[in-house]
């Protein structure tokens, strides 16, 4: 039980690190080569792809959406929470659709 909890904490930390590293890489290293809104587009795409690939029963993609949404908010003029909400809702809808209508 303890191990499962520990594993989950490690997983969430890794997801947070991944989202942070990706966002900083896109906004800093590729700073000059980013097209208009491409940063937002790339992070949205990653979140959607992860939600589609992941097992519908698992919840890791929610955490990824949360962290990616946070970074989009930080680098945009919108208040913190705006893109988090959009991404979490998109993830939820994808999960529901995949669970109900897609059979693997």
């Amino acid at each position: 039980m303890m191990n499962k909890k520990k594993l989950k904490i490690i997983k969430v930390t890794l997801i947070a690190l991944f989202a942070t590293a990706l966002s900083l890489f896109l906004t800093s290293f590729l700073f000059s080569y980013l097209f208009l809104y491409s940063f937002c587009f790339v992070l949205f795409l990653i979140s959607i792809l992860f939600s589609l690939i992941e097992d519908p029963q698992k919840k890791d993609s929610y955490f990824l959406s949360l962290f990616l949404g946070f970074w989009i908010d930080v680098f945009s003029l919108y208040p913190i929470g705006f893109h988090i909400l959009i991404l979490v809702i998109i993830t939820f809808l994808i999960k529901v659709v995949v669970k109900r209508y897609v059979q693997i």
Partner: protein
Amino acid sequence: MIKKNNRFLFIAFLLIIFLLVSFFTSTSSVIKNITFKITGSLQEKITKNGSNFFETFSAFKNTNTLKNKVKDLRIENKKLLVELSKMEEIRQENQIIRKVVDIEIKEDEKRIISAVLGKDLSGFQIIISHSKNNLKVGDPVLTPEGVLVGRIIENYGTSSKVLLLASKKSFFEVKVQNEDAPIGIISGTEDDLLMLDLIPQDKKIEVGDRVVTLPVEETIIRGIFIGEIVEVIRDDVDNFTKAYVKQDINPRYLDYLVVITE
């Protein structure tokens, strides 16, 4: 399933509440400032490495062009040195005249060096970090060489957001440095060139004329160099002349900027 949906709705509700709170209070700015403070130094390093990497890469790609450019620049440099010496003479003369007519030379402007942290979503806003907290919205942001690149639109404390001149949202009055000294409005085109508009038809402008700022607002200082006119568009139907202004600044390679504040 219903339980899970309820849990999701509860989380979504909490997020909406948080969104509303951050929308109506300054929570967002505080969070953004803390985030930039934590990641600032790291971002600064990554941005610098990134621009160095791409600069080296592009140098390899355009060796021949660079050789020609170096030749041209050497010639231009010599011409500029001659012009500089003339200017220095004029400056000294000007100082003497100012003393004679007893005009105070305004020297209360401060120049603050800021590091470029990253780019905003729109692509025409950049985030800079600075040690001092006394910058104002509207303060002009220059390259270290003194070319205007944009103005501060949001200040988070020790970091600020800068709207670049290339953005379509950026427009203000400027002056062309020639005999007629016409005044027009410069705006971004979201491309390499800036658009200079609303210049009266009877005023003369030519390719190569320099464009500088006018002190129309409190925060703008007179005579900051913006760019050179590269194309003049005259239309008989229109009452105004348009022109394209080139800045010769590549935002890719901006690591540090200078903010002028009073």
